[in-house]
């Protein structure tokens, strides 16, 4: 958790995109970077291998005025999804405020999705953060592919907990629901720090304009 600076009237939040290898975390950030007004964002920094696989992290800073009188800075990070980079994922998760878990909807990726979610739980626990307390949402990515598991199945596998979270059917390459999921986690974490700390029961209002193709934004579960 960052410190509020009253002199510059700034608040910073760190949101981490987490998920198995090649699930579309970097594609999410690239789409947001491409579609958001350059005045409201910084450069997209990618520390990647020669083959464009994330080695350390991707980083995209966004600015917004979402709390009256304060500039709010959202710092978006991705983690490297490959199993061997767990130490790096732990580093990137340090001081995290919110998480977007990106699952790959393809049938053959289910085991990796479950392993990655368990890995997220474990790495958060090492920072004394419970998955049941941190604001997070689920993305079911690659819904445009043919061999995808039904959303009900993904819900059963990844969202079958005491606290069910919002989940989104996403196509990160075309941007479908990329902004919707970012808006959702932003609103949840902002409300966590408000005096009325209950998370809104209704679908949260957008923080960022979803500049997306005109497709129906399917939302399969509410908080």
């Amino acid at each position, binding site marked *: 958790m960052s410190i509020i*600076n009253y002199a510059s009237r700034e608040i*910073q939040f760190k949101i981490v995109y987490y998920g198995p290898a090649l699930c579309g975390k970097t594609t999410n950030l690239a789409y947001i970077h491409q579609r958001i007004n350059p005045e409201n964002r910084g450069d997209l920094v990618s520390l990647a291998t020669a083959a464009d696989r994330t080695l350390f992290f991707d*980083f995209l*800073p966004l600015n917004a005025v*979402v709390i009256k009188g304060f500039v709010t800075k959202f710092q978006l990070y991705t983690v490297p999804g490959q199993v061997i980079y767990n130490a790096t994922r732990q580093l990137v998760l340090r001081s995290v405020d919110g998480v977007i878990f990106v699952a790959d909807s393809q049938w053959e990726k289910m085991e990796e999705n479950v392993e990655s979610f368990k890995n997220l739980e474990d790495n958060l626990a090492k920072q004394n953060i419970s998955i049941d307390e941190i604001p997070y949402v689920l993305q079911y990515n690659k819904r445009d592919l043919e061999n995808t598991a039904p959303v009900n199945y993904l819900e059963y596998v990844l969202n079958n907990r005491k606290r069910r979270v919002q989940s989104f059917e996403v196509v990160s390459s075309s941007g479908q629901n990329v902004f919707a999921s970012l808006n959702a986690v932003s609103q949840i974490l902002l409300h966590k720090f408000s*005096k009325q700390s209950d998370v809104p029961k209704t679908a949260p209002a957008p923080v960022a304009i979803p500049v997306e193709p005109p497709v129906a934004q399917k939302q399969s579960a509410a908080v």
Partner: protein
Amino acid sequence: MNAIPCLTIEDVANLDGILSNFLNKAEAELTVVIDRGGNVISQFGDMTVMDVTIIAALAAGSFAATKELARRIGEVEFNALYHQGNGNHIFMNSVDDDTIMITVFGRRTTVGLVRFYSASTAQSVAALLKSLSNTGHGFSFDASDITATPIFAGQ
């Protein structure tokens, strides 16, 4: 309700005083105090030449990544890191368990001078941040203060 720890205007003025004094003595260009998660706590100096937010994220990553290297030689972590360029350089030193100080400097000064003054500056910054956590003042806001209107405009 979760309160967010905050720096009051007085805290920021005190911190700026420490950092300004350091920059004058070390003849460096810019100094940034960040937490180990990459968030900027305070900054002072010429901020027009670079994106401080990105510098902070990368510096936190760099500092964290070398921790394992330090452990291989029997250290808990390296207290300081120095990246030497052709004209501009970065010196980073640990302030406390949660905080790092980054200094960017050029040809006007030397790494020795920056290193020398950064040690006492880090101690002063650590003391100030410790007193901050002891006072326990935090910030929270009404849910109604959170905007419901779209913020970012698409291109």
